[in-house]
């Protein structure tokens, strides 16, 4: 099975670089972006199992980046990793489809585990949808 693919988004370059190195040493395939715009571009260029997104970023902030990402790819699994998520922004992120919210500092093991479980849930959902499509074709065509 191919490694889990994750996109890390945070305007602190040193932070994403070190976190990416730690995730790679745990078998993940990691890409990094240091702005919302760069993240949107990368999310369109490649398929990711999960996106780990900061909220407080200059320019396009985390909430707006999440909104646009979900418009482009409604199935994209995005989790928030932020230092200062308020209740208001956390609720907004969940309403926009974020699957989880983590407060910095979070142990890398916790993040990796969540990324893996997100991918497993996504695969199970895809599997279920494929099965339902096959069943529908078999019913419609009378096979």
């Amino acid at each position, binding site marked *: 099975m191919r490694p889990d693919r994750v996109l890390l988004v945070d305007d*602190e370059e*040193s932070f994403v670089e070190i976190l990416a190195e730690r995730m790679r*040493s745990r078998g993940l395939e990691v890409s990094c972006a240091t702005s919302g715009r760069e993240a949107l571009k990368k999310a369109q260029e490649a398929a990711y199992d999960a996106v780990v997104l900061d909220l407080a970023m200059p320019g396009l902030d985390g909430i707006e980046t999440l909104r646009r990402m979900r418009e482009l790819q409604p199935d994209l699994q995005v989790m928030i990793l932020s230092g200062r998520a308020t209740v208001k922004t956390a609720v907004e992120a969940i309403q926009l489809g974020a699957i989880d919210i983590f407060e*910095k500092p979070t142990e890398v093991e916790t993040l990796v585990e969540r990324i893996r479980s997100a991918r497993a849930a996504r695969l199970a959902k895809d599997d279920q949808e494929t099965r339902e499509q096959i069943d529908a074709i078999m019913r419609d065509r009378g096979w």
Partner: protein
Amino acid sequence: MAKGEAERPTAREGVLYFGRVAAGLSHELSNVLNIINELAGLQRDIAAAAVEGGGDARFARFSDLAQRIKTQVSRGEAINRGLHRFAHSVDNADTSFDLGELLGLLAFLEERPARLARVALDVHPPEHGLALCGDPFSLLLALHACVGAALRACAEDGRVEVHAEAAGGAARIRVTATGSLPAEGADAVSAAAFRAGAAAWGAAVCLDPGTDAQRSLVLSVPAAAAAREAAGTADPSLEVP
């Protein structure tokens, strides 16, 4: 208005500026702490891999050191989180907020003065959530004046307790010192608390004489609507029940 007075920043503008800058710097400090935390994590990863790969057992020491750095980062992050909350406490002078959360911030801010005075400080929020409407920073200042007076009155190894309770839509906050708050100094404490912020709430500060060994300052905060009506009109004179 004297010449130049209009250009002078108001106290409110000054407080807002201070809060904005402190919140921004706290955010930057948080970024630094997060990077240090991840660097310590990376150091621990590398040390663990070296030990597993049969490397020098002294690498385990690096792992221990990395863990100690992470512990200090957690401590720094907790302090920084409190600083961030304090900075944002000035954001809105007319807002709805939870008294329990404000008392949590008070406990954080007064922990150091209490520790330096060698006095134990226990802050007990209301049993159930209690929403107040007004200026949280003014109330924090008034409470700081009361707690400060109680800390000064306590002997070393004494205890200051803060209890809050709902009182018919209003709130009553009792600051009790197990030393002895001098009755003759209570006027000054009341006036200080009033100047510090109680006035904005139309709140009254009074001394509950209790016993020589245990006296309380009681801050009675009216309900939100009443607070607005009474703001600026309350009498700072000492009330003794």
